[in-house]
């Protein structure tokens, strides 16, 4: 489960985190469901933070207009 979670992009994980909170907020859950949602949500939150922590801006420079090469290193 955790390995599946680590592959999630920030926006997907963040969106699921918000949805998880809403789901738990709506109630009408069994204890097992509530615990599962809670654990999932906590993992998502920590994953989101890690993604932000580890992020480094990557800049790719395209070839100048008219050139045929695709990507050139900055």
């Amino acid at each position, binding site marked *: 489960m955790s390995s599946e979670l680590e592959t999630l992009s920030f926006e997907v994980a963040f969106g699921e985190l918000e949805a998880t*909170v809403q789901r*738990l907020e709506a109630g009408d*859950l069994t204890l097992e469901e*509530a615990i599962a949602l*809670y654990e999932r949500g906590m993992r998502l939150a920590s994953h*989101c933070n890690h993604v932000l922590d580890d*992020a480094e801006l990557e800049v790719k420079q*395209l070839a100048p*207009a008219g050139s045929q090469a695709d990507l050139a290193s900055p």
Partner: protein
Amino acid sequence: MTPIQYSLPIFPSRAKEPGSRTPDSKDSDPESSGPGDSGTGFGGPKFRVWTVTGLTRYIKDLLELDPELQDVWLEGEISNFSRATSGHLYFTLKDAEAAIQCVMWRTAATVLAWQPEHGAAAQARGHISIYPPRGSYQLYVDELHPIGLGDLHARFEELRERLRAEGLFGVERKRPLPVFPRGLGIVTSPQAAALQDVLNVLRRRYPLIGVYLAPTAVQGDQAPPQIVAALQAVDARDDVDLLLLVRGGGSLEELWAFNDERVARAIAACRHPVVCGVGHETDFTIADFVADVRAPTPSAAAELAVPDQTDLRQQIEACARQLVGLMERHLGQLRKAWEQQQRALQRLSPQARVDTRRQQADDLIQRASRALAYGLALRRSRLAGLEARLAALSPLATLERGYAIVRRSDNGAVVRRVDQAHAGDALTIRVQDGEFSASVQPPAGPAPGTG
């Protein structure tokens, strides 16, 4: 123009030459014409000696009578510009070789539609005259027009109106920016400080984003087609979902590529939303109007393009807190429900019924034992009655009335008849209160009435 030959010895007569434009030829004014006898002291030929004022006026008249100089269009670069408290403007128009002083009276200056400034190229219309106190000639300016600028302004307005009429700036065309953009295409000059500003903002706010820089010139004739090509190249990428078109500050001419119709149409044709940040806060370009979002500066464009990770981290933290709170609430509800069930269970317990039954059983036992005791007593009393009746029937009761029972001592047989007893037999006599022994005497005949 013919040089002024003021050094001619024949000067006095020259004033009377035909065709001379000297207005002082009347010689009525001693101060201005001023030829005099002051030259007599040299003893030589008579020179005409001018006063400063006189010569100045002479020159002034020369200038003011030349129609060529009285309606002049002069083009040059403004320098030493100053606006006096009186409202008059003083400046110099110059080119590489020369400079001419200019003055523009307040009445003319107030109708200026632009702000002349040092370094601006301008065309001035006016007349040349002389300022006697300083002996300098200058241009008295009636009109002052910016060069090129006016032309650019007109083109800007024309294009803006045309594109507006076409609906290119319409609010309904503006697309919302993605909340979490994955890829950002930046169209600008790679050397520009603006690019570094943008990258710094991205690094600080949202380093998750992939940046694709489409390099282009941002000023000069080559800039518009290059900007168009760069926009198209980066807009075609599928890993990009937002475009940034930025350039640092500059003069109107330097920013002109962003007022180009080709650039405007290329922005409008982009399939991804475009944020435009060109120049400073006060600079508006056509590109700004066409773009989905106009940012006042390149840095501001970057800030509008991506979310801020500080906010995001706060939101994540808030979500985590909410999760804990909701879980606690959920558990609390379960505990409360459990307690309610517990109480309900107690209320519905069979204990009470058990107790009732137990009491009923006690009652029955009590009633049963009472009934038993009554039965016993009844029987006892009946027994007693029977005993009494039994006692009444007992031979012992007869004994009380004086009768005795005679038994043979040897075998205990009751002696009922005479022949049962013989002389010498031992008898046991039972009376009411006991027994005693007797022996049979010799026969004495049967007793009367017995046999």
